């Protein structure tokens, strides 16, 4: 890994990209992102979540430090630097502005962190593009509480960036200050930051073994110190959370699998969601036809039922249910492939490959596979019957973004003379799929009766029709 920001030019095959080119690209991306949210997705239809929850005006008269604690008024949630910050700002600004701002911050932070991490302009620019195309936060149009979700993900990226500096052995004061600020922002962002801890613990031993085998004892020791620090921080966090704002209980949204009291339902429930959540993230970059039942999407439920011609009518609903749950076959395939990829990446690290790509692959695969491990502790809910709640699996989403960007970077490396063409083809796919997935998500959410999503591509067609 190298800090290529100092070079001021970055190659794409035989071509060079300089800073003004990057600024122009990011400006275009942010402009398109803003247009998409405001015009195509009708972002100004979003309303303030806390107002919708009936939070009284007294809530906003608290001392500033009280917002840094779990919020008893809001189910004990501890999301000071994202949801709560968003709610406070939304007393002044429209939620759509907060959404645009947080998504824009994510695009820029994603680009900068990816470039610092890899030195690859293709990787970094694709990461930035994916934070526009991937509709991980589309549920904000139904339940409006995640307008600042982009900030949460940005904090995580900053935490990664700061952690990499420490693991590399950068021990200047500013490195620790940067790490401290990023960690505080991140930990106070949302309870599911602990998902990251699970991923770190899972990869800790394999990474430590690979580093030690390649006689990189110092990096191995620094990495394990970081893991130890995060585990300690998690213990303190959980004690504080349980003491001040524990909101789980029978019948609540956060009712935990442990309350089943028996191992078999705990296991069944947990495994179901680990695999399902993994695919929920991966599905955001796949054609909808490879995600769910294409016949359900294209023909509709009534047509499917009619085609049974009344056979076994008392149990006919199971035929329909088959189409609702069809996506789980694809989820299993993707999960198995990702496990193979994880083993491959670790073997390469074990063999001594020090390329940044191997480490990004290893950590990103782990994030896609197990990035929702703590969220999976919450009991299975009807809303998990189709893969559309991307905001719940934001760690997996970042892993997915990293893997796809890595794939594009690898593709470009295959034939450097055609680098720009490869980038154009890959980005075309991502934009196409991004809009297609948005339409498909609208189907899933309608099927689950969890509200409605905008259909930007139809809105665009209507807009064009108006113009001509």
């Amino acid at each position, binding site marked *: 890994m190298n800090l290529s920001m100092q070079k001021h030019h970055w190659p794409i095959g035989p071509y*060079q990209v300089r800073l003004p080119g990057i600024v122009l690209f990011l400006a275009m991306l942010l402009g398109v992102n803003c247009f998409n949210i405001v015009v195509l997705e009708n972002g100004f239809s979003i309303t303030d979540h806390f107002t919708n929850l009936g939070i009284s005006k007294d809530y906003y008269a608290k001392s500033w430090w009280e917002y840094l604690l779990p919020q008893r008024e809001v189910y004990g949630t501890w999301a000071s630097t994202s949801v709560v910050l968003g709610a406070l700002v939304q007393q002044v600004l429209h939620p759509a502005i907060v959404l645009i701002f947080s998504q824009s911050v994510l695009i820029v932070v994603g680009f900068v962190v990816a470039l610092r991490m890899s030195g690859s302009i293709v990787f970094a620019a694709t990461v930035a593009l994916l934070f526009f195309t991937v509709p991980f936060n589309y549920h904000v149009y139904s339940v409006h509480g995640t307008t600042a979700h982009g900030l949460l993900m940005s904090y995580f990226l900053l935490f990664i960036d700061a952690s990499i500096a420490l693991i590399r052995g950068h021990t200047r004061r500013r490195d620790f200050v940067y790490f401290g600020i990023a960690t505080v922002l991140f930990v106070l962002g949302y309870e599911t930051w602990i998902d990251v801890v699970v991923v770190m613990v899972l990869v800790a031993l394999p990474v430590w073994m690979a580093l030690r085998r390649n006689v990189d004892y110092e990096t191995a020791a620094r990495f394990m110190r970081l893991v130890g620090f995060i585990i300690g921080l998690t213990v303190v966090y959980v004690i504080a959370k349980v003491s001040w704002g524990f909101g789980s209980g029978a019948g609540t949204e956060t009712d935990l699998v442990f309350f089943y009291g028996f191992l078999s339902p705990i296991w069944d429930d947990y495994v179901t969601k680990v695999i399902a959540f993994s695919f929920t993230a991966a599905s955001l970059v796949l054609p909808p036809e490879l995600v769910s039942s294409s016949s359900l999407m294209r023909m*509709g439920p009534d047509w499917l039922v009619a085609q049974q011609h009344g056979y076994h009518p008392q149990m006919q609903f199971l035929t329909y249910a088959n189409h609702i749950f069809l996506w789980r076959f694809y989820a299993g395939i993707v999960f198995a492939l990702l496990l193979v990829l994880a083993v491959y990446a670790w073997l390469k690290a074990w063999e001594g490959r020090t390329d940044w790509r191997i480490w990004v692959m290893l950590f990103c695969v782990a994030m896609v596979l197990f990035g929702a491990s703590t969220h999976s502790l919450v009991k299975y809910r009807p809303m998990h019957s189709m893969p559309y709640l991307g905001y719940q699996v934001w760690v997996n989403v970042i892993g997915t973004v990293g893997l796809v960007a890595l794939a594009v970077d690898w593709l470009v490396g295959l034939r450097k003379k055609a680098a720009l063409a490869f980038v154009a083809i890959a980005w075309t796919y991502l934009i196409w799929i991004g809009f297609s997935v948005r339409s*498909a998500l609208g189907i899933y959410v309608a099927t689950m009766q969890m509200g409605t999503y905008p259909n930007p591509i139809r809105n665009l067609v209507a807009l064009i029709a108006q113009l001509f």
Partner: protein
Amino acid sequence: MRLVRTDVLGLGAVFAVALVVGTTLAIMTVPDNFQSIQRPSRAVIKDILADWDRREAEMVALQNLQAGRIYYSTLSGNVEALVVGVSMPRHPSRGFFVELSGAWSSGALWRSPSFIPEAGRPFEVRHQITALDDVSLQIRVKDDAGGVLFQTDIEGQGREQRIEVIGTGEKAYVELLLNSGVEAEAPGGRVAWVEQLSVFAEGTQ
């Protein structure tokens, strides 16, 4: 030789091209009715269950009325289980259509599964059949040895009709025949709509 000057415009130009082509592809491939044909799963399942509840209520009412036992009925909606040997397309609202299969040349259009009526006790065949395309149909009740227990032409075009037959204690079945009206060499057409066919033993009350 550089084909594209990437110093400033390259990355933005690639993005612009991808944006135009990718968006166009999405417009072309996302169907207009992608979302409008969808319904909440709860509503779909509720309709399926309501349809079954209605059928079940009809059968229960029939059974209670006769204080007897239903051998089978199209009211159950299980057309595949009722008609032996051929596949019959379901009518959009009730019952099923009778089609001339490719293998049909003459004789029975379909036959029901066998049932064993109690010897000396009456059982009832209740049917509601509409002949289509000017054909003439006949319904028969036969025993397993091929003996005709009862036969009559379908008349009344969809009006409910009842046939009462005395059971012999041997296996029996119902079959529908084509008297005339369709050329034997022209299979595939729909010749009847069986709105209802129920066979049940009458009670002792």
